């Protein structure tokens, strides 16, 4: 198994609170890795460390970038994690640019490429052919993903006016426009109805199998995680408590304990009292 991302003894402390405690994890290339765990287990903190929003207290985040070679994500600023390492995330509470149209949201995702083509806006200001070609290409790429995610009819609508499930899809489409090597999805199925989450499953499998994008997935919806993940890591109190295939994880006594609580005399006695 060649790891695309290896998390090594990652620790994140906020004052006295240890949100992540020496967590080690490997994310293989071209596979879907699920991260599950009870609320407050440190899943989103892991994402924030990965994408440069938090500086980890200690530990390493090594990315084996297919083109640029090994990169240390914990040393990069958040915009460089996206621009240079091509690790892109979505947010648990959707963060679109609400007043801008769906298409504009997807074009902004390609900002760095377009900004380079616009030559500090000079080529763009005078509408030089190089810039116009780059812009046409960006629109083309956006249109491709919009079509793939069945959003093309909504392209010119303000993103913030659209229903929740559609906003989730837009956020994924926007992340895809960055052309990620590793796509980190933070609860993409939250608030989706069963049909929408079935479509999400199908999309995730497509991205991974056909496009070779590695996916790191935080999810509470077990029908999504268990169906699509190749590999699952379970976190509780900032530590990894189990790892393996969906079937292995489902039968792991530690996991059952974390989710359903301990089944010992003391605990049941306290509940009864």
């Amino acid at each position, binding site marked *: 198994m060649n790891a695309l991302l290896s998390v090594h003894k990652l620790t994140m402390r906020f004052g006295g609170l240890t949100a992540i405690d020496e967590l080690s994890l490997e994310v293989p290339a071209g596979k879907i890795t699920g991260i599950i765990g009870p609320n407050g287990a440190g899943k989103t903190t892991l994402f924030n460390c990965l994408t440069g929003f938090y500086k980890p207290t200690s530990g390493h985040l090594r990315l084996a970038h297919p083109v640029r070679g090994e990169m240390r994500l914990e040393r990069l600023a958040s*915009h460089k994690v*996206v621009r240079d390492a091509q690790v892109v995330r979505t947010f648990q509470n959707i963060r679109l640019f609400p007043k801008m*149209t769906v*298409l504009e949201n997807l*074009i*902004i995702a390609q900002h760095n490429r377009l900004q380079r083509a616009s030559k500090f806006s000079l080529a*763009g200001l005078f509408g030089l052919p190089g810039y116009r070609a780059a812009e046409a290409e960006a629109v083309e790429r956006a249109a491709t993903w919009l079509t793939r995610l069945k959003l093309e009819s909504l392209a010119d609508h303000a993103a913030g006016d659209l229903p929740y499930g559609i906003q989730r899809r837009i956020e994924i489409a926007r992340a895809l426009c960055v052309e990620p090597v590793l796509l980190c999805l933070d609860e993409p199925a939250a608030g989706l109805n069963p049909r929408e989450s079935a479509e999400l499953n199908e999309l995730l499998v497509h991205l991974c199998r056909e496009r070779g994008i590695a996916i790191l997935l935080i999810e509470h919806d077990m029908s999504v995680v268990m169906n699509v993940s190749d590999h699952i890591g379970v976190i509780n109190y900032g530590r990894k408590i189990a790892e393996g295939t969906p079937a292995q994880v489902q039968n792991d006594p530690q996991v059952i304990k974390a989710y359903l609580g301990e089944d010992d005399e003391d605990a049941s006695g306290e509940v009864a009292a």
Partner: protein
Amino acid sequence: MSAVVFAHHGMTPAERLRDAGWVAFVALVLGIPLIGLTTVDAGGRLEVATRFGMLALFVAVAFIGRIALRLTLDHLRVRRLGRERAAAAADGGRGLAQRIVTVLGWFALGAAFTLPLIFSGNRYVVDTATTVLIYVMLGWGLNVVVGLAGLLDLGYVAFYAVGAYSYALLSTQYGWGFWEALPVSGALAASFGILLGYPILRLRGDYLAIVTLGFGEIIRIILVNWTEFSNGPNGISSIPRPSFFGLEFTRRPAEGEQSFAAFFGLDYSPMQRLIFLYYVILVLALLTHAFVSRLRKLPVGRAWEALREDEIACRAMGMNTTNIKLSAFAIGAMLGGFAGVFFAARQGFISPESFVFTESAIVLAIVVLGGMGSQMGVVLAATLLVLIPEFGRNFAEYRMLLFGAAMVLIMVWKPGGLLSHREPTLRLDAPATGTEGAR
């Protein structure tokens, strides 16, 4: 909506007659004491006389008038509804407001070009119009920072001052002309924008507003106190006016120079210079507009808007928010600097008095009132905010009260600004079908 239309269409002739009959009855009841009976002076005592002919005429007029009024109102209402529905069907109700704004824009442009020709003898009108255009230009500059990038800047007047003082000093101390000093002063103002931008990169909202407010005051206080540099509160006077390709607007030009009037064989008039200045600011403002509108459709402009919408999402899209903020501050400051250069050249005299906080507040009010990010809104708001106090001169001490009341009313009536519609920077070139399921 259609129910209303039918209700008015559905009024049968019998109903109309009954409606008019009621009105005629009321007219009759009121008319008997008012018109039907009258007192006449019959040799020292009053007698009651009757005027039933006039009463009948009055009731008939009320009856016919009521029918006519009803018919006209219904007709107008039906026509208005029809027009609204046709417009809504034509473009989903979206484009109508935009089309009106576009037409309004072209009309304003035509008016702006012809105004000094029509009022060529009226100094007051041309002066006021020039002031409006200065504020339009300042508004467009601040619109980049506040309207597009969403960075609340309360010290914008600082850049205006930097532009004005750099032209004043360059021209009076080093003999630079208006056109040479313009780009240099703009660049200087832009570097002040970056200077301000650096320390406040991490600040947002209220905190940002307070620091920018402080920056504006710092610049003004420096100008007041650093007498050797800026001549302090006395200001800088006899700043040279811009020339028309080397032709000066004076009665007696300097040795070896030619005056505008003499060159074109016209009689000298001080209005020529005012009208020329008006056209200079008009062209500067139009260039600003073209520049900002173009930037808005480029990656940098979209990045500004994205920054206003959600800074964290910007970082998650790999955008360097530092550069985006600094570019917004620099471009906004540069445009403010250009306006400052023009201001100094037009006044011929500047002092720190011209660059007080109130100016920043007025420019900010123009941007907010116009609708954040709307270019046409700025024009409308600038015109209103300059003209309301001008009209208010008749009300003497109630002038600022009127100004405040007008602003409150506008914000109550249109909380998003006068023109809050946002036009997308680009559209997908797909056939506009399949919009079902949009909502």
